[in-house]
């Protein structure tokens, strides 16, 4: 008697695809404040492929920073699951490199020692670490400044130190929260170019929060747009331009078209409540 071989039923939650470096499933975040609960993120769902550079756009206060902190394991999710390389995030992720709006360097350490800061905080510094730090300083073009103190550097240079520091542990993902927002327009463009070229040589999975639509398009493979609170991800767009990106890409009519589309999607979404 022949029997029909029944396919084993899929478990309710499929195992995370190993090609997804980051996944978010029904992620919600509520902050409990003195004046009541604040729902910073209502529901976020996304997958980010390994090696993708993903920009996140959205109005102020829509929960972008919160989302990034949850990915880094620095804020717990209220509900939902985030995974990195298939593993659920339950605490701080030492495999993530981070950058913020302020460079947050230690004023009493030299540039080189600032780059080595993440290493120095959890284990003795090895000669290899030093070599790597020196290599990174070459990469961000600060080799000559390795012995200087942060106060002797310009804003853009400090942010480049912060970038080198974020890369010191060779993180599998790079999380950047408006890293260039405090810089002037010219320095900001230079930093964008520098980051693009560094990304071209490292291909790190990256989440890059920004308010600049042009910066988002220029740098990323994909743009996520978050709406006003209660916030969800309202747009998810692939950026079609080939790499390595050159500044001339901004002259491409498709660039402008994408720019206008994203601009409209951020501005015109109805404010809920």
């Amino acid at each position, binding site marked *: 008697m022949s029997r029909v071989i029944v396919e084993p039923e899929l478990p309710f939650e499929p195992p995370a695809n190993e090609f997804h470096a980051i996944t978010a499933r029904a992620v919600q975040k509520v902050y409990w404040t003195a004046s009541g609960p604040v729902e910073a993120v209502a529901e976020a769902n996304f997958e980010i492929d390994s090696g993708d550079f993903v920009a996140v756009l959205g109005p102020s206060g829509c929960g972008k920073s919160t989302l990034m*902190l949850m990915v*880094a*394991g*620095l804020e717990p999710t209220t509900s939902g699951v985030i995974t990195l390389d298939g593993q659920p995030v339950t605490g*701080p*992720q*030492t495999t*993530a490199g*981070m950058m*913020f709006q*302020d460079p*947050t360097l*230690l*004023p*009493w350490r030299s540039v080189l020692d600032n780059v080595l*800061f*993440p290493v*120095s*905080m*959890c284990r003795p510094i090895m000669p290899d670490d030093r070599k790597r730090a020196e290599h990174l300083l070459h990469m961000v073009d600060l080799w000559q400044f390795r012995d200087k103190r942060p*106060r002797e550097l310009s804003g853009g240079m400090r942010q480049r130190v912060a970038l080198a520091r974020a890369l010191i*542990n060779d993180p599998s993902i790079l999380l950047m929260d408006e890293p260039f927002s405090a810089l002037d327009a010219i320095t900001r463009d230079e930093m964008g170019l520098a980051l693009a070229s560094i990304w071209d040589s490292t291909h790190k999975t990256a989440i890059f929060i920004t308010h600049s639509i042009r910066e988002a398009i220029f740098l990323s493979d994909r743009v996520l747009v978050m709406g006003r609170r209660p916030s969800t991800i309202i747009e998810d767009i692939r950026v079609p331009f080939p790499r390595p990106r050159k500044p001339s890409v901004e002259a491409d009519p498709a660039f402008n078209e994408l720019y206008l589309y994203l601009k409209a999607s951020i501005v015109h979404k109805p404010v809920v409540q």
Partner: protein
Amino acid sequence: MTDTREPPTPPARRPLVLQLAALLYSRAVVLPLVTAAAVIAAWEAVVRIRHIPDVLLPAPSAVAMRLAETLPFLLQHAVPTTLETIAGFAISAVLGIGLAVLVSASRFAREALYPNIVFFQLIPKIALAPLFIVWLGIGSSSRVTFSVFISFFPVVVATLTGLVSVDRELLRLCRAVGAKGWKIYTQVRFPAAVPHIFSGLKIAITFAMIGVIVGEFITAQAGLGYMILFAASQAEMALIFASIVLLCVIGLALYALVVVAEAFALKRYGA
């Protein structure tokens, strides 16, 4: 018009001696000195013109002469005052910084201790000085203890302010890289607090001296505080002023030492 672009000659650095001379003649230095000299001259003039007796108000010149005559004797009394001030200050620094670290590191310690430390400060502490004599006797230990008692609080407050002044994102970064709590203290929080700590130490050194002098007023054995009381009992006004002048000099010197240490620390840890 011709445009002969000569490279600008870099301004030559003046030799150090000239820089010092310039500083000395600068208004910031000269003006306060002139003011002080004017006040002293007026004092001298008033005493001479009005023939004010020495037992009421000695002229600055009389004070200076008395100071010169009695200097070896006064210096003998200055030794215990100075040493006790330094001891009180040193203990305050260690105790104050230690308490601040404890209070900032442990929520339990904060809730159990901090309100009490603040409450302690509301007590008019000088009123308690006799108690220390009763408990600890008339030796150095009671004066040093009292000195600590009135000078440690500014250190606690300043250190705490410094320890919590650390950038939130920097602390986030520490957590992100998996740093241990004590590492965060030694590598981030404490160095960041150094400038604040020194503002507390500068207050503490002056308070420490006040504590020792009050102690000497009460225990009356030795020291410049004792000298002042003794001279008052003898109606030796010039000697009182001579002792005060010496106290000021010592106070200034100790304060200056803290300022120099601060300058070194800020060179290393300042922003």
